Protein backbone atom coordinates (compact mmCIF):
# COMPACT_ATOMS: atom_id res chain seq x y z
CA UNK A 1 0.00 0.00 0.00
CA UNK A 2 1.55 3.28 -1.08
CA UNK A 3 1.00 6.57 0.73
CA UNK A 4 -1.32 9.33 -0.49
CA UNK A 5 1.62 11.56 -1.36
CA UNK A 6 4.92 9.86 -1.92
CA UNK A 7 8.19 11.60 -2.65
CA UNK A 8 10.43 8.84 -3.86
CA UNK A 9 14.21 9.07 -4.04
CA UNK A 10 14.16 12.64 -5.33
CA UNK A 11 17.39 14.42 -6.27
CA UNK A 12 17.45 17.92 -7.68
CA UNK A 13 20.40 19.36 -9.56
CA UNK A 14 20.68 23.05 -10.41
CA UNK A 15 23.02 24.36 -13.05
CA UNK A 16 24.63 27.72 -12.45
CA UNK A 17 27.52 29.25 -14.39
CA UNK A 18 28.28 25.96 -16.09
CA UNK A 19 28.56 24.06 -12.82
CA UNK A 20 25.97 21.66 -11.53
CA UNK A 21 25.01 21.80 -7.92
CA UNK A 22 23.15 19.02 -6.12
CA UNK A 23 20.54 20.83 -4.02
CA UNK A 24 18.78 17.82 -2.52
CA UNK A 25 19.68 14.16 -2.77
CA UNK A 26 17.63 11.00 -2.41
CA UNK A 27 14.77 12.53 -0.47
CA UNK A 28 12.03 10.11 0.59
CA UNK A 29 8.90 11.45 2.29
CA UNK A 30 5.53 9.78 2.64
CA UNK A 31 2.42 11.73 3.60
CA UNK A 32 -0.96 10.20 4.45
CA UNK A 33 -4.26 11.74 3.47
CA UNK A 34 -5.31 14.39 5.99
CA UNK A 35 -1.85 14.53 7.51
CA UNK A 36 -0.02 17.75 8.34
CA UNK A 37 3.68 17.34 7.63
CA UNK A 38 6.28 20.04 8.22
CA UNK A 39 9.71 20.09 6.65
CA UNK A 40 12.25 21.92 8.78
CA UNK A 41 15.92 22.69 8.26
CA UNK A 42 18.47 25.46 8.17
CA UNK A 43 18.05 28.05 5.45
CA UNK A 44 19.57 26.99 2.16
CA UNK A 45 19.07 23.29 2.90
CA UNK A 46 16.69 22.76 0.01
CA UNK A 47 13.38 22.64 1.90
CA UNK A 48 11.72 24.88 -0.65
CA UNK A 49 13.19 22.81 -3.46
CA UNK A 50 11.42 19.72 -2.13
CA UNK A 51 8.18 21.68 -1.94
CA UNK A 52 8.65 22.97 -5.47
CA UNK A 53 9.13 19.40 -6.69
CA UNK A 54 5.73 18.49 -5.19
CA UNK A 55 4.26 21.66 -6.69
CA UNK A 56 5.69 20.66 -10.05
CA UNK A 57 7.58 23.95 -10.37
CA UNK A 58 10.96 22.18 -10.25
CA UNK A 59 11.74 18.97 -12.08
CA UNK A 60 13.85 16.43 -10.18
CA UNK A 61 16.96 15.02 -11.84
CA UNK A 62 16.19 11.60 -10.41
CA UNK A 63 13.23 10.10 -8.62
CA UNK A 64 9.71 11.47 -8.63
CA UNK A 65 6.61 12.21 -6.65
CA UNK A 66 3.24 10.50 -6.78
CA UNK A 67 0.00 12.02 -5.51
CA UNK A 68 -3.10 9.83 -5.15
CA UNK A 69 -1.67 7.25 -7.52
CA UNK A 70 -0.71 9.75 -10.23
CA UNK A 71 2.80 10.83 -11.02
CA UNK A 72 3.42 14.57 -10.59
CA UNK A 73 4.29 16.10 -13.93
CA UNK A 74 4.25 19.90 -13.88
CA UNK A 75 2.20 22.31 -11.79
CA UNK A 76 -1.48 21.81 -11.19
CA UNK A 77 -4.28 23.41 -9.16
CA UNK A 78 -4.71 20.07 -7.34
CA UNK A 79 -1.48 21.04 -5.54
CA UNK A 80 -2.18 24.58 -4.37
CA UNK A 81 0.75 26.64 -3.12
CA UNK A 82 0.74 29.33 -0.44
CA UNK A 83 3.81 31.36 -1.32
CA UNK A 84 6.04 32.97 1.30
CA UNK A 85 5.55 36.43 -0.17
CA UNK A 86 1.79 35.88 -0.66
CA UNK A 87 2.07 36.53 -4.44
CA UNK A 88 -1.29 38.25 -4.68
CA UNK A 89 -1.98 40.13 -7.88
CA UNK A 90 -1.97 43.80 -6.85
CA UNK A 91 -4.51 44.91 -9.47
CA UNK A 92 -7.18 42.53 -8.20
CA UNK A 93 -9.18 42.86 -4.98
CA UNK A 94 -8.97 40.12 -2.33
CA UNK A 95 -12.16 38.72 -3.83
CA UNK A 96 -10.67 38.96 -7.33
CA UNK A 97 -7.51 37.11 -6.32
CA UNK A 98 -9.43 34.21 -4.82
CA UNK A 99 -11.98 34.27 -7.62
CA UNK A 100 -9.27 33.91 -10.28
CA UNK A 101 -8.30 30.55 -8.78
CA UNK A 102 -11.90 29.46 -8.18
CA UNK A 103 -12.84 30.34 -11.74
CA UNK A 104 -9.93 28.33 -13.13
CA UNK A 105 -10.72 25.20 -11.09
CA UNK A 106 -14.52 25.19 -11.05
CA UNK A 107 -15.42 27.62 -13.87
CA UNK A 108 -16.16 24.89 -16.40
CA UNK A 109 -18.88 23.16 -14.41
CA UNK A 110 -20.39 25.72 -12.04
CA UNK A 111 -22.55 28.81 -12.41
CA UNK A 112 -21.29 32.32 -11.72
CA UNK A 113 -23.30 32.44 -8.50
CA UNK A 114 -21.72 29.21 -7.30
CA UNK A 115 -18.23 30.52 -8.08
CA UNK A 116 -18.91 33.73 -6.15
CA UNK A 117 -20.30 31.62 -3.31
CA UNK A 118 -17.12 29.54 -3.18
CA UNK A 119 -14.98 32.68 -3.20
CA UNK A 120 -16.97 34.25 -0.38
CA UNK A 121 -16.84 31.03 1.63
CA UNK A 122 -13.05 30.85 1.33
CA UNK A 123 -12.68 34.47 2.45
CA UNK A 124 -15.06 33.84 5.35
CA UNK A 125 -13.00 30.80 6.37
CA UNK A 126 -9.92 32.98 6.88
CA UNK A 127 -12.00 35.75 8.49
CA UNK A 128 -11.65 38.32 5.74
CA UNK A 129 -15.22 38.89 4.58
CA UNK A 130 -14.96 42.53 5.60
CA UNK A 131 -11.89 43.14 3.43
CA UNK A 132 -12.94 41.35 0.27
CA UNK A 133 -13.27 44.55 -1.80
CA UNK A 134 -9.81 45.80 -0.76
CA UNK A 135 -6.66 45.60 -2.86
CA UNK A 136 -3.58 43.83 -1.48
CA UNK A 137 -1.72 47.10 -0.88
CA UNK A 138 -4.55 48.29 1.37
CA UNK A 139 -4.31 45.42 3.88
CA UNK A 140 -1.68 44.22 6.36
CA UNK A 141 0.90 41.51 5.74
CA UNK A 142 -1.02 39.03 7.87
CA UNK A 143 -4.21 39.71 5.95
CA UNK A 144 -2.41 39.24 2.64
CA UNK A 145 -1.19 35.86 3.78
CA UNK A 146 -4.76 34.98 4.81
CA UNK A 147 -5.92 35.82 1.30
CA UNK A 148 -3.13 33.59 -0.04
CA UNK A 149 -4.40 30.75 2.16
CA UNK A 150 -7.99 31.42 1.11
CA UNK A 151 -6.97 31.32 -2.54
CA UNK A 152 -5.21 27.98 -2.04
CA UNK A 153 -8.01 26.42 0.02
CA UNK A 154 -10.71 27.62 -2.38
CA UNK A 155 -9.17 25.42 -5.06
CA UNK A 156 -9.99 22.35 -2.92
CA UNK A 157 -6.54 20.94 -3.59
CA UNK A 158 -5.57 17.35 -2.93
CA UNK A 159 -2.60 18.68 -1.05
CA UNK A 160 -1.92 22.16 0.29
CA UNK A 161 1.70 23.26 -0.04
CA UNK A 162 2.89 26.08 2.20
CA UNK A 163 6.31 27.63 1.67
CA UNK A 164 7.23 29.37 4.93
CA UNK A 165 3.84 31.05 4.82
CA UNK A 166 4.29 32.98 8.06
CA UNK A 167 8.04 33.59 7.77
CA UNK A 168 7.74 37.26 6.86
CA UNK A 169 5.26 38.14 9.62
CA UNK A 170 5.80 39.49 13.11
CA UNK A 171 5.51 37.07 16.03
CA UNK A 172 2.02 38.07 17.17
CA UNK A 173 0.54 38.01 13.68
CA UNK A 174 2.23 34.69 13.08
CA UNK A 175 0.69 33.19 16.23
CA UNK A 176 -2.68 34.51 15.14
CA UNK A 177 -2.42 32.89 11.75
CA UNK A 178 -1.15 29.61 13.19
CA UNK A 179 -4.26 29.46 15.37
CA UNK A 180 -6.45 30.30 12.39
CA UNK A 181 -4.77 27.56 10.37
CA UNK A 182 -5.33 25.03 13.17
CA UNK A 183 -9.02 25.99 13.28
CA UNK A 184 -9.33 25.50 9.54
CA UNK A 185 -7.52 22.16 9.75
CA UNK A 186 -9.82 20.99 12.55
CA UNK A 187 -12.78 21.54 10.22
CA UNK A 188 -11.43 20.44 6.87
CA UNK A 189 -8.53 18.02 7.48
CA UNK A 190 -6.52 19.00 4.43
CA UNK A 191 -3.36 17.17 3.51
CA UNK A 192 -0.65 19.78 4.12
CA UNK A 193 3.06 19.94 3.49
CA UNK A 194 4.56 23.04 5.07
CA UNK A 195 8.08 24.42 5.01
CA UNK A 196 9.28 26.27 8.08
CA UNK A 197 12.39 27.18 10.00
CA UNK A 198 10.42 27.86 13.18
CA UNK A 199 10.67 24.99 15.68
CA UNK A 200 7.62 26.05 17.72
CA UNK A 201 5.52 26.36 14.60
CA UNK A 202 6.55 22.88 13.48
CA UNK A 203 5.63 21.25 16.81
CA UNK A 204 2.41 23.21 17.22
CA UNK A 205 0.94 22.49 13.79
CA UNK A 206 2.30 19.17 12.60
CA UNK A 207 1.46 15.51 12.83
CA UNK A 208 4.99 14.76 11.74
CA UNK A 209 8.12 16.84 11.34
CA UNK A 210 10.65 15.97 8.63
CA UNK A 211 14.09 17.29 9.55
CA UNK A 212 16.51 17.94 6.72
CA UNK A 213 20.29 17.89 6.85
CA UNK A 214 22.31 20.84 5.65
CA UNK A 215 22.96 21.36 1.95
CA UNK A 216 24.48 20.94 -0.50
CA UNK A 217 23.06 17.50 -1.26
CA UNK A 218 20.63 17.85 1.64
CA UNK A 219 18.45 14.91 2.51
CA UNK A 220 16.01 13.74 5.17
CA UNK A 221 17.86 13.37 8.46
CA UNK A 222 15.12 12.33 10.83
CA UNK A 223 11.34 12.16 11.03
CA UNK A 224 9.62 12.98 14.30
CA UNK A 225 6.00 12.11 15.09
CA UNK A 226 4.22 14.81 17.06
CA UNK A 227 1.72 12.78 19.08
CA UNK A 228 0.29 15.70 21.01
CA UNK A 229 -3.52 15.48 21.20
CA UNK A 230 -5.67 17.92 19.22
CA UNK A 231 -7.05 20.49 19.55
CA UNK A 232 -3.81 22.07 20.67
CA UNK A 233 -3.61 25.36 22.51
CA UNK A 234 -0.39 27.27 22.63
CA UNK A 235 -0.86 28.35 26.26
CA UNK A 236 -1.45 24.82 27.52
CA UNK A 237 1.46 23.50 25.47
CA UNK A 238 3.74 26.13 26.97
CA UNK A 239 3.72 24.17 30.22
CA UNK A 240 3.40 20.68 28.70
CA UNK A 241 6.59 18.60 29.22
CA UNK A 242 5.82 16.48 26.11
CA UNK A 243 5.81 19.65 23.99
CA UNK A 244 9.16 20.67 25.41
CA UNK A 245 10.64 17.23 24.84
CA UNK A 246 9.60 17.28 21.17
CA UNK A 247 10.88 20.80 20.77
CA UNK A 248 14.19 19.79 22.32
CA UNK A 249 14.46 16.83 19.91
CA UNK A 250 14.20 19.15 16.93
CA UNK A 251 16.57 21.72 18.41
CA UNK A 252 19.12 19.00 19.10
CA UNK A 253 18.91 17.82 15.52
CA UNK A 254 19.23 21.32 14.10
CA UNK A 255 21.94 22.65 16.37
CA UNK A 256 23.94 19.65 17.62
CA UNK A 257 23.84 17.23 14.73
CA UNK A 258 23.56 19.68 11.85
CA UNK A 259 25.43 22.51 13.53
CA UNK A 260 25.35 25.74 11.66
CA UNK A 261 25.48 25.90 7.90
CA UNK A 262 28.71 27.17 6.40
CA UNK A 263 27.10 30.14 4.72
CA UNK A 264 24.37 31.96 6.56
Amino acid at each position, binding site marked *: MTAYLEIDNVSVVFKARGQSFVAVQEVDIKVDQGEFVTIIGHSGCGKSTVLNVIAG*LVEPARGGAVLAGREIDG*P*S*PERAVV*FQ*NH*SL*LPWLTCFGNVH*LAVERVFGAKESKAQLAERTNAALALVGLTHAKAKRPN*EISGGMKQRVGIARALAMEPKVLLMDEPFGALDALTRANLQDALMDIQAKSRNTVVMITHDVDEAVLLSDRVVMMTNGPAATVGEVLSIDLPRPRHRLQLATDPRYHALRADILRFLHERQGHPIAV
Partner: protein
Amino acid sequence: MARSGLAAVLPPLFGISALVLIWALVARGSDYLPGPGSTLTSAIELFSDPFYRKGPNDQGIGWNLLASLSRVAQGFGLAALVGIPLGFVLGRFTMISRAFQPIVSLLRPVSPLAWLPIGLAVFQAANPAAIFTIFICSIWPMLLNTALGVASVPQDYLNVARVLRLSEWTVFTRILLPASIPYVLTGAKLALGIAWLSIVASEMLTGGVGIGFWLWDEWNNLNMEHILIAIVVIGVVGLAIEQGMNLVAKRFDYRSN
Protein backbone atom coordinates in the same frame (compact mmCIF):
# COMPACT_ATOMS: atom_id res chain seq x y z
CA MET B 1 -4.12 75.68 3.38
CA ALA B 2 -4.23 79.25 2.05
CA ARG B 3 -0.57 79.63 2.80
CA SER B 4 0.47 76.47 1.00
CA GLY B 5 -1.78 77.50 -1.92
CA LEU B 6 0.02 80.82 -2.11
CA ALA B 7 3.37 79.05 -1.90
CA ALA B 8 2.36 76.89 -4.83
CA VAL B 9 1.19 79.77 -7.02
CA LEU B 10 3.66 82.54 -6.24
CA PRO B 11 7.02 81.07 -7.40
CA PRO B 12 5.78 80.04 -10.90
CA LEU B 13 4.07 83.41 -11.24
CA PHE B 14 7.31 85.09 -10.30
CA GLY B 15 9.28 82.98 -12.80
CA ILE B 16 6.94 83.82 -15.66
CA SER B 17 6.93 87.53 -14.76
CA ALA B 18 10.73 87.55 -14.76
CA LEU B 19 10.77 85.92 -18.20
CA VAL B 20 8.31 88.48 -19.59
CA LEU B 21 10.38 91.30 -18.09
CA ILE B 22 13.61 90.06 -19.65
CA TRP B 23 11.77 89.58 -22.93
CA ALA B 24 10.49 93.16 -22.79
CA LEU B 25 13.99 94.50 -22.05
CA VAL B 26 15.60 92.50 -24.85
CA ALA B 27 12.82 93.48 -27.28
CA ARG B 28 13.40 97.18 -26.62
CA GLY B 29 16.95 96.92 -27.88
CA SER B 30 16.10 94.74 -30.88
CA ASP B 31 14.78 95.61 -34.32
CA TYR B 32 13.24 92.23 -34.99
CA LEU B 33 12.00 90.85 -31.69
CA PRO B 34 8.54 92.19 -30.84
CA GLY B 35 7.81 92.98 -27.17
CA PRO B 36 5.19 91.35 -24.94
CA GLY B 37 2.70 94.18 -25.56
CA SER B 38 2.54 93.95 -29.33
CA THR B 39 2.60 90.14 -29.16
CA LEU B 40 -0.39 90.18 -26.83
CA THR B 41 -2.32 92.55 -29.10
CA SER B 42 -1.55 90.30 -32.03
CA ALA B 43 -2.59 87.21 -30.06
CA ILE B 44 -5.93 88.73 -29.10
CA GLU B 45 -6.60 89.51 -32.73
CA LEU B 46 -5.50 86.02 -33.79
CA PHE B 47 -7.59 84.13 -31.26
CA SER B 48 -10.68 86.28 -31.85
CA ASP B 49 -11.19 84.33 -35.09
CA PRO B 50 -9.28 81.06 -34.88
CA PHE B 51 -11.47 79.16 -37.36
CA TYR B 52 -11.55 81.11 -40.63
CA ARG B 53 -10.75 79.73 -44.04
CA LYS B 54 -9.41 81.90 -46.87
CA GLY B 55 -8.12 79.34 -49.28
CA PRO B 56 -5.88 76.30 -48.56
CA ASN B 57 -2.84 78.26 -47.35
CA ASP B 58 -4.59 80.85 -45.23
CA GLN B 59 -6.61 79.32 -42.42
CA GLY B 60 -7.18 80.19 -38.76
CA ILE B 61 -4.73 79.01 -36.09
CA GLY B 62 -7.44 76.70 -34.72
CA TRP B 63 -7.58 74.76 -38.01
CA ASN B 64 -3.80 74.59 -38.14
CA LEU B 65 -3.63 73.22 -34.61
CA LEU B 66 -6.37 70.70 -35.27
CA ALA B 67 -4.63 69.54 -38.45
CA SER B 68 -1.38 68.93 -36.52
CA LEU B 69 -3.18 67.17 -33.68
CA SER B 70 -5.02 64.96 -36.12
CA ARG B 71 -1.74 63.91 -37.80
CA VAL B 72 -0.20 63.16 -34.42
CA ALA B 73 -3.27 61.16 -33.41
CA GLN B 74 -3.19 59.11 -36.62
CA GLY B 75 0.56 58.44 -36.57
CA PHE B 76 0.54 57.72 -32.85
CA GLY B 77 -2.55 55.52 -33.10
CA LEU B 78 -0.99 53.40 -35.85
CA ALA B 79 2.25 53.16 -33.87
CA ALA B 80 0.31 51.99 -30.80
CA LEU B 81 -1.55 49.41 -32.88
CA VAL B 82 1.73 47.95 -34.14
CA GLY B 83 4.17 48.78 -31.33
CA ILE B 84 2.25 47.60 -28.27
CA PRO B 85 1.36 44.09 -29.54
CA LEU B 86 4.87 43.70 -30.96
CA GLY B 87 6.27 44.82 -27.60
CA PHE B 88 4.26 42.10 -25.87
CA VAL B 89 5.67 39.48 -28.23
CA LEU B 90 9.24 40.74 -27.75
CA GLY B 91 8.86 40.84 -23.98
CA ARG B 92 7.41 37.35 -23.78
CA PHE B 93 9.64 35.49 -26.24
CA THR B 94 13.38 35.95 -25.78
CA MET B 95 14.35 34.51 -29.15
CA ILE B 96 12.14 36.89 -31.14
CA SER B 97 13.42 39.72 -28.98
CA ARG B 98 17.00 38.82 -29.88
CA ALA B 99 16.11 38.83 -33.56
CA PHE B 100 14.57 42.29 -33.36
CA GLN B 101 17.03 43.90 -30.98
CA PRO B 102 19.69 44.94 -33.54
CA ILE B 103 17.05 46.42 -35.86
CA VAL B 104 15.51 48.45 -33.07
CA SER B 105 18.89 49.60 -31.77
CA LEU B 106 19.91 50.74 -35.23
CA LEU B 107 16.72 52.58 -36.20
CA ARG B 108 15.74 54.12 -32.88
CA PRO B 109 18.38 56.89 -32.80
CA VAL B 110 17.52 58.06 -36.35
CA SER B 111 15.84 61.45 -36.45
CA PRO B 112 12.23 61.08 -37.58
CA LEU B 113 12.79 63.71 -40.26
CA ALA B 114 15.23 61.38 -41.98
CA TRP B 115 12.23 59.17 -42.74
CA LEU B 116 10.27 61.97 -44.37
CA PRO B 117 11.72 61.54 -47.89
CA ILE B 118 10.93 57.81 -47.74
CA GLY B 119 7.39 58.65 -46.71
CA LEU B 120 7.10 61.14 -49.55
CA ALA B 121 8.49 58.65 -52.04
CA VAL B 122 6.18 55.84 -50.91
CA PHE B 123 2.97 57.80 -50.49
CA GLN B 124 3.55 60.52 -53.11
CA ALA B 125 1.71 62.96 -50.85
CA ALA B 126 2.65 65.25 -47.98
CA ASN B 127 -0.03 64.35 -45.46
CA PRO B 128 0.52 60.55 -45.29
CA ALA B 129 4.28 61.16 -45.32
CA ALA B 130 3.98 63.34 -42.19
CA ILE B 131 1.79 60.72 -40.51
CA PHE B 132 4.34 58.07 -41.46
CA THR B 133 7.09 60.15 -39.83
CA ILE B 134 5.06 60.39 -36.64
CA PHE B 135 4.41 56.65 -36.80
CA ILE B 136 8.12 55.85 -37.08
CA CYS B 137 9.23 58.12 -34.26
CA SER B 138 6.52 57.11 -31.81
CA ILE B 139 6.71 53.34 -32.33
CA TRP B 140 10.11 52.86 -30.61
CA PRO B 141 9.30 54.10 -27.10
CA MET B 142 6.05 52.13 -27.08
CA LEU B 143 7.69 48.98 -28.38
CA LEU B 144 10.62 49.12 -25.97
CA ASN B 145 8.64 50.10 -22.89
CA THR B 146 5.99 47.46 -23.49
CA ALA B 147 8.66 44.80 -23.95
CA LEU B 148 10.39 45.96 -20.78
CA GLY B 149 7.10 45.89 -18.88
CA VAL B 150 6.29 42.35 -19.98
CA ALA B 151 9.81 41.12 -19.31
CA SER B 152 9.79 42.56 -15.80
CA VAL B 153 6.53 41.01 -14.64
CA PRO B 154 7.54 39.45 -11.28
CA GLN B 155 8.19 35.71 -11.37
CA ASP B 156 5.85 35.37 -8.37
CA TYR B 157 2.86 36.32 -10.50
CA LEU B 158 3.91 33.91 -13.22
CA ASN B 159 4.29 31.14 -10.62
CA VAL B 160 0.68 31.76 -9.61
CA ALA B 161 -0.22 31.38 -13.27
CA ARG B 162 1.77 28.15 -13.49
CA VAL B 163 0.19 26.61 -10.39
CA LEU B 164 -3.26 27.54 -11.68
CA ARG B 165 -2.20 26.31 -15.12
CA LEU B 166 -3.79 29.35 -16.74
CA SER B 167 -4.02 29.38 -20.52
CA GLU B 168 -1.66 31.70 -22.41
CA TRP B 169 -4.64 33.96 -23.17
CA THR B 170 -5.67 34.18 -19.51
CA VAL B 171 -2.05 34.84 -18.50
CA PHE B 172 -2.06 37.66 -21.02
CA THR B 173 -5.35 39.28 -20.01
CA ARG B 174 -5.19 38.72 -16.26
CA ILE B 175 -1.47 39.00 -15.48
CA LEU B 176 0.78 40.33 -18.27
CA LEU B 177 -1.57 43.09 -19.41
CA PRO B 178 -2.40 44.64 -16.03
CA ALA B 179 1.18 44.21 -14.80
CA SER B 180 2.68 45.99 -17.80
CA ILE B 181 0.10 48.76 -18.29
CA PRO B 182 2.19 51.30 -16.33
CA TYR B 183 5.12 50.62 -18.67
CA VAL B 184 2.92 50.76 -21.77
CA LEU B 185 1.54 54.14 -20.70
CA THR B 186 5.02 55.48 -19.98
CA GLY B 187 5.95 54.44 -23.51
CA ALA B 188 2.84 56.13 -24.89
CA LYS B 189 3.64 59.32 -23.01
CA LEU B 190 7.19 59.43 -24.35
CA ALA B 191 5.92 58.63 -27.84
CA LEU B 192 3.37 61.45 -27.79
CA GLY B 193 6.04 63.88 -26.60
CA ILE B 194 8.35 62.92 -29.46
CA ALA B 195 5.44 62.96 -31.92
CA TRP B 196 4.53 66.50 -30.94
CA LEU B 197 8.19 67.58 -31.30
CA SER B 198 8.43 65.98 -34.72
CA ILE B 199 5.17 67.16 -36.23
CA VAL B 200 6.22 70.81 -36.13
CA ALA B 201 9.43 70.04 -38.00
CA SER B 202 7.75 67.72 -40.53
CA GLU B 203 5.08 70.26 -41.33
CA MET B 204 7.69 72.92 -41.95
CA LEU B 205 8.98 70.67 -44.71
CA THR B 206 5.72 69.31 -46.08
CA GLY B 207 3.55 72.44 -46.01
CA GLY B 208 -0.23 72.40 -46.21
CA VAL B 209 -2.17 73.04 -43.03
CA GLY B 210 -0.62 72.59 -39.60
CA ILE B 211 0.96 74.55 -36.81
CA GLY B 212 4.48 73.83 -38.08
CA PHE B 213 3.59 75.00 -41.56
CA TRP B 214 1.86 78.04 -40.12
CA LEU B 215 4.96 78.98 -38.13
CA TRP B 216 7.15 78.68 -41.23
CA ASP B 217 4.63 80.64 -43.29
CA GLU B 218 4.68 83.48 -40.75
CA TRP B 219 8.48 83.47 -40.96
CA ASN B 220 8.13 83.98 -44.71
CA ASN B 221 5.73 86.84 -43.92
CA LEU B 222 8.25 88.12 -41.35
CA ASN B 223 5.45 88.22 -38.77
CA MET B 224 7.54 87.76 -35.63
CA GLU B 225 4.59 88.20 -33.29
CA HIS B 226 2.91 85.18 -34.82
CA ILE B 227 6.06 83.11 -34.52
CA LEU B 228 6.27 83.86 -30.80
CA ILE B 229 2.57 83.03 -30.43
CA ALA B 230 3.13 79.76 -32.30
CA ILE B 231 5.95 78.84 -29.92
CA VAL B 232 3.76 79.46 -26.88
CA VAL B 233 0.83 77.58 -28.42
CA ILE B 234 3.02 74.58 -29.28
CA GLY B 235 4.36 74.60 -25.72
CA VAL B 236 0.92 74.82 -24.15
CA VAL B 237 -0.47 72.01 -26.30
CA GLY B 238 2.56 69.81 -25.56
CA LEU B 239 2.12 70.46 -21.87
CA ALA B 240 -1.59 69.63 -22.09
CA ILE B 241 -0.83 66.36 -23.89
CA GLU B 242 1.69 65.39 -21.23
CA GLN B 243 -0.62 66.26 -18.33
CA GLY B 244 -3.45 64.38 -20.02
CA MET B 245 -1.25 61.30 -20.36
CA ASN B 246 -0.24 61.60 -16.71
CA LEU B 247 -3.91 61.53 -15.75
CA VAL B 248 -4.54 58.48 -17.92
CA ALA B 249 -1.46 56.75 -16.50
CA LYS B 250 -2.61 57.44 -12.96
CA ARG B 251 -6.08 56.13 -13.72
CA PHE B 252 -4.84 52.79 -15.12
CA ASP B 253 -1.88 52.18 -12.83
CA TYR B 254 -2.74 49.45 -10.31
CA ARG B 255 -0.26 50.98 -7.86
CA SER B 256 -2.43 54.07 -7.40
CA ASN B 257 -5.98 53.49 -6.34
